[in-house]
């Protein structure tokens, strides 16, 4: 029974090749709200399965599989240009790390918090995807670069969200990674660090394809001031939540 539950959970906390299902589903969901809901709910189903089945997955094979899945999707993110797919691959790279955290025997609330911390950046990136698609007709990096000069508010939001995607301080992903690293073995720790490095590389490429580069001219309206403040508020809340959570996580 527990083996079956673990295989089922591997679709929701995606391990390759089960992760193909989530990525196809994410690519096929066109409604922005449905896509947001998918990103938030999908990994929590995996967490619910683990908590419901009182699963205690362990073993080198599962740890290696999760680590390799994380590295594999982080590596593939390097050449993804559609921001929606980029967000899905980021999620497919971040969520396997939940398995490594589970192996450290955390409490149920810590597990949920950890998964949410790993979900924050992909969800924020979906918002960026929609903002870009609404203005530029398509959310492709490299299609219209140099947004920094002409759409400064949108560029600021893209930069902040990308930093969150790279799991840099003080975003929740940073503390979540420290939490999972604090109980990792050497091989797993190196795998996690490699994943982290690849996120940074992919994030920098995303920034170079959007906000940096020769200016495109006044191609669209910038993000409204109120929306920018809303996103800023959201980010502050997430950072604060991450800081409060780390009191018990590290």
């Amino acid at each position, binding site marked *: 029974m527990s083996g079956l539950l673990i295989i089922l959970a591997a679709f929701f906390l995606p391990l390759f090749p089960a992760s193909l299902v989530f990525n196809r589903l994410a690519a096929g969901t066109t409604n922005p709200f449905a896509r947001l809901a998918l990103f938030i709910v999908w990994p929590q189903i995996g967490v619910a399965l683990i908590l419901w089945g009182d699963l205690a997955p362990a073993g080198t094979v599962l740890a290696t599989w999760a680590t390799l899945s994380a590295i594999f999707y982080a590596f593939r993110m390097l050449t993804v240009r559609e921001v929606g797919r980029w967000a899905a691959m980021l999620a497919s790279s971040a969520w396997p790390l939940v398995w490594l955290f589970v192996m450290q025997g955390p409490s149920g609330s810590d597990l949920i918090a950890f998964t949410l911390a790993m979900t924050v950046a992909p969800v924020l990136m979906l918002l960026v995807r929609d903002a870009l698609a609404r203005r530029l007709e398509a959310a492709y990096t490299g299609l219209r670069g140099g947004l920094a000069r002409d759409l400064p508010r949108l560029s600021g939001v893209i930069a902040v969200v990308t930093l969150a995607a790279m799991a840099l301080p003080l975003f929740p992903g940073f503390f979540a990674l*420290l939490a999972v690293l604090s109980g990792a073995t050497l091989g797993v720790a190196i795998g996690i660090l490699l994943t982290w*490095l690849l996120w940074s*590389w992919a994030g920098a490429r995303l920034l170079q394809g959007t906000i940096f580069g020769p200016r495109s001219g006044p191609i669209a309206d910038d993000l409204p001031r109120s929306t920018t403040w809303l996103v800023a508020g959201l980010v502050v809340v997430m950072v604060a939540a991450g800081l409060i959570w780390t*009191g018990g996580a590290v």
Partner: protein
Amino acid sequence: MIELQWLIPLLPFLAALLVHLLGGRMGKRVARLSVGINLLVVVIAAFQLTAYIAGDTGPQWMGLANGWGSLQLDPLSAIMALVVSGISLVVHIYSIRYMIEEPGYGRFFMLLDLMTGSILLMVMAGDLITLLIAWHLIGVVLYFLLAHNTEPPNAQRYAFWTFITYRLGDLPLVLAAVILFQAYGVLDFPTLFERIAESPDVRTFMNLPVTGTVAFLVALSAFAKSAQFPFHTWLPYTMEGPTPVSALMHAGIVNAGGIIINRFAPVFVHSGEILHLLFVVGLVTALIGSVLMLTQNDIKKSLGYSTMGQMGFMIMETGAGAFALAIFHLIAHGLFKGTMFLGAGNVIGAARKHDGVPNDPLYDFLVERKSAPARLPWLIIGAVTLIVPLVILVMAHAWVAEDFFQKQGAIVLLFFGWITGVQVLFATHRLDSENPVRMMALIILSFALIVVGYSFVGHSFETFLYPDAAFRDSLYSAAGIDAVTFDMLVILLALIVVLGWMGAYLTNVRRQRVDEGHGNARLTLYSLFSREFYVADVYDRMTVTLLDFSKRLNVWLKWS
């Protein structure tokens, strides 16, 4: 007193926030706000340093809560806070006019404040996580500062190189922190270092010693941040960023490696092999940096490689056990290099107005290569050149510390001092002068003053930074090697250096062209230098291959 320490990193962060929020309303005047707050930071840092020296409290530590979020006030943090905030203030003031016509004026000052806050947090961090946060932030903010002008492709390209190298340097420190936390169960530095001193032989993954493994990882981190070979390619290429950023980078940010090694001195003291590694990597970096500096035809890249060479020396000093000297070196180099960058515009401006270069003896000697018709006898000069610097150095160091010559690291530094002194006399004895004896006497007097002054200041600085004499001796002792091997190495190096001088002298006497003889070997060597040892090319090829592979995987899996 420690409560006041919080203001030092927090005020620049506050300045960044205010600059961002008030930028629209205040316009260009927002820079004055930033400068004002940074001036306050310098005043507080100066007060803290003075109070620390005057008081008798010793190092202090204060945390916000249990876990992480703490600062410390110790000699290293006190002195570095003043240096960093001081250099940052000068850069701020310089930028007020320099950046006035650049787009994103307010953003630039915001980033400058964020950078100042991050570096100050790094030097004062009281626990592993606070240090990691600051360590990460430095790389991120530097990326945005270097890419401040968002349009030129080269600026973006090299900002990216810097960012990815800094990320490479971030991650070993994370692993080091994880290992320390797993082994000793604490995050704050005072307790951590206490426990390390009590039980330095704790083992970690694969039964490796914790101290050695952590020292190795910290060294890797330092190599990336301080542009050590082969992680150096970002440094000479980052001149596309604004000049004030170059000044701040070369005067402050690139020194992070030396600071972090000093911060983890209680770990390095148990890791002799890693100190040897630091020495070798520093030496290789110093050599390569200096050689590439001499072969560049681009003045900015040349300055970049000069910094790389200096960073090599700094790391080499830590490898010799002279941790305090590395800090002394990075402060001196920071002030010197910062001045060069900030003064470069004025020099260019002056050169445009007065195209006639002053025609004095020094110019004739250095540029026109005209030496004096009347010189002192070569035998006297040879003896003076080889012996006088050694005598001055030995006497000066014996004066400040009698046991100086018991330490191998000190001998190494003395050796480099001797070479430098000989080079100075060797290079200047042919300077045209009406009275060659008086000129030589003046040169020797200047050299003696510099050495004595430096020895005194250096020794006082070392005593301030590491007041525990036993700990200072342990650092030198950890960096030591077998006495016979050491002596053999010193003799071998001395022979190589002396043979090099003789070769240079004979070439000069015979008036040989530099490229005569050994044509192919010289050409190959020059190709290597001019292509900067192909390091950047190798990285480029690796990047292209990896990206191509990633793309193929995505196509094969239909982007799912």
